[in-house]
């Protein structure tokens, strides 16, 4: 865990305190409190409409906060206009100025802020080299590929030397392969800036692969904040458990509680096998399999409990199966509220 859990007033990173945004009777962001240390990447994760982009817009100053406070580098920036916050933002659409060349996209802001020509030129050369954009200086955004546009958008953010980096789904316009390749590169680049980074995404792989810590949001409320591993192994509630992990966690009813079973923690054997001490089992029929290359997802139809997804290395041979799991591996939730019930599983180590 790299993020400091306590932060005094001299805290140099980003700090949100009870931040809310309400529009009419709608609460977009609800009493959100969190900190991001310098050099740390925090991912805001959640389905669309969960308030992650609204939070980012509050931090950037594009929307006013209804209540609460935003601190950056020890000063209260809640009421400052965007221009005075020293934040840089990469938009989902990249928001490159379509009528300006790559070079002008980067330099216009600096020019209008009254920076000297020599200084601008020096920064331009530096950032364009860093982002490998030197050959594209005179191109217009329309003449660039998706990946190049993303690099220009990042370059435009970097060149400002911001005190805070905000990214709104910067990968969503790229194809899957490019996304996988860029993740590590982007992480290194963002870490190297040494400023807090807030990264909005709805993609759990992106959040887990890029961020130091993850915040899961739902309806504007913080569900859980922690490292990817913590969120995966020790989710605070059913929503977090379901949102992280693919295939999704299996949920089976046990009266007023619900068991959450990770597909990779389930074992398959022949139906009727004896169940070992400390294990639980269900019997069912194999309905179909998805072959993933190195693993197989088996869909096992278990009478009234519905279908369980089991992730294993080898495909089951028979079709009448027993699905079993260590009782200690099951996550227990309150069936009504979805809250995690205490003492349900011991943190698992591999």
């Amino acid at each position: 865990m790299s993020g400091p859990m306590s932060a005094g007033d001299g805290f140099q990173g980003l700090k949100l305190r009870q931040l809310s945004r309400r529009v009419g009777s709608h609460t977009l962001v609800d009493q959100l409190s969190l900190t991001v240390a310098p050099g740390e990447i925090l991912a805001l994760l959640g389905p669309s409409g969960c308030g992650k982009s609204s939070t980012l817009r509050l931090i950037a100053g594009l929307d006013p906060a209804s209540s609460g406070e935003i601190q950056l580098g020890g000063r209260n920036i809640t009421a400052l206009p965007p221009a005075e916050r020293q934040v840089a933002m990469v938009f989902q659409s990249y928001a490159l100025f379509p009528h300006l060349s790559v070079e002008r996209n980067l330099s216009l802001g600096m020019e209008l802020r009254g920076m000297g020509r020599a200084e601008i030129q020096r920064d331009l050369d530096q950032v364009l080299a860093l982002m490998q954009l030197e050959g594209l200086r005179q191109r217009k955004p329309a003449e660039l590929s998706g990946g190049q546009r993303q690099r220009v958008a990042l370059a435009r953010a970097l060149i400002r030397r911001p005190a805070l980096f905000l990214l709104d789904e910067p990968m969503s316009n790229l194809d899957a392969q490019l996304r996988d390749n860029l993740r590590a590169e982007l992480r290194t680049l963002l870490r190297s800036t040494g400023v807090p980074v807030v990264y909005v995404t709805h993609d759990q792989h992106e959040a887990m692969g890029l961020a130091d810590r993850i915040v899961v949001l739902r309806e504007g409320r913080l569900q859980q904040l922690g490292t990817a591993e913590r969120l995966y192994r020790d989710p605070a509630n059913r929503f977090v458990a379901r949102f992280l992990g693919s295939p999704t966690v299996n949920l089976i009813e046990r009266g007023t509680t619900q068991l959450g079973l990770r597909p990779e923690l389930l074992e398959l054997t022949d139906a009727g096998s004896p169940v070992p001490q400390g294990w639980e089992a269900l019997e069912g029929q194999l309905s179909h399999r998805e072959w993933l290359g190195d693993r197989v997802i088996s869909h096992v139809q278990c009478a009234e409990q519905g279908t369980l997804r089991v992730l294993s290395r080898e495909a089951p041979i028979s079709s009448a199966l027993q699905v079993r799991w260590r009782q200690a591996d099951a996550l227990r939730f309150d069936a009504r509220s979805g809250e995690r019930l205490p003492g349900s599983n011991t943190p698992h180590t591999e």
Partner: protein
Amino acid sequence: MARLLLLLWSLGPMLWQLYSSLKPSEALSGLGAGGWTLENYRQLLQGDPPFLTYLINSVVVGASSTALTLALAVPCAYALSRLGRRQARALTALVAAAAAFPAVLLFLALLELARDWHLANQLLALSLPYAGLCLPLAILLLQAAFADIPVELEEAALIEGMGLWQRLRWILLPLMAPAMASSALLVFLFSWNEYPIALTWLSRTELLTLAPAMARIAGSSVYTIPYGACAAATVLGSAPLILLMLLFQRQIISGLTQGAIKG
């Protein structure tokens, strides 16, 4: 073949004017009769005042009307495009109603205004009613163009630290060039062709704009209709417009079809 017919259909009247303007008056009753002459043009250009004065007057009025309209319409359209949806819809309906208002009904009131505020016989004052009449349409056109620009572009500029005027000057207006060009041309055309207001607001001959000047040329004699002079005046009067159209053709077409292709 179909194209040729279409071309003849649209260009025919213009070519006929050009032909008539180059013929002596007495030759016009019979096709092909008489030689070619520049007499019609000579008379116009050396008249009192020379025809060029009218042209210049029209250009002055057109340019000032256009400038005034855009200067007022750009901020209005920007404000409308950034208002909340419900307010914007109500105000846009109002603007549209104003655009549909029959200008003829304003005519007498305008005349009163000209008299009371001593605006008669002042070229630049003409751009007041012209801008007023063109404003609603220009606002609607520009508002649509503003709405076509993604909000993130302006937000990105905001985060870059640009103020309102900087965002307009460096980001929004350059992206609206086509819409600005087509709105400007609409205003200019309106002002160029406008007749009743110009006729009543201007009485001194050397201040006349093209439309009333042409009427005066056509009606200068009770006994004959000076076809040749009229034709020459038409040719000279439309030449600047054709030139403008050719110069800004691409912008204007993309401005008029902007919403249609970008989706």
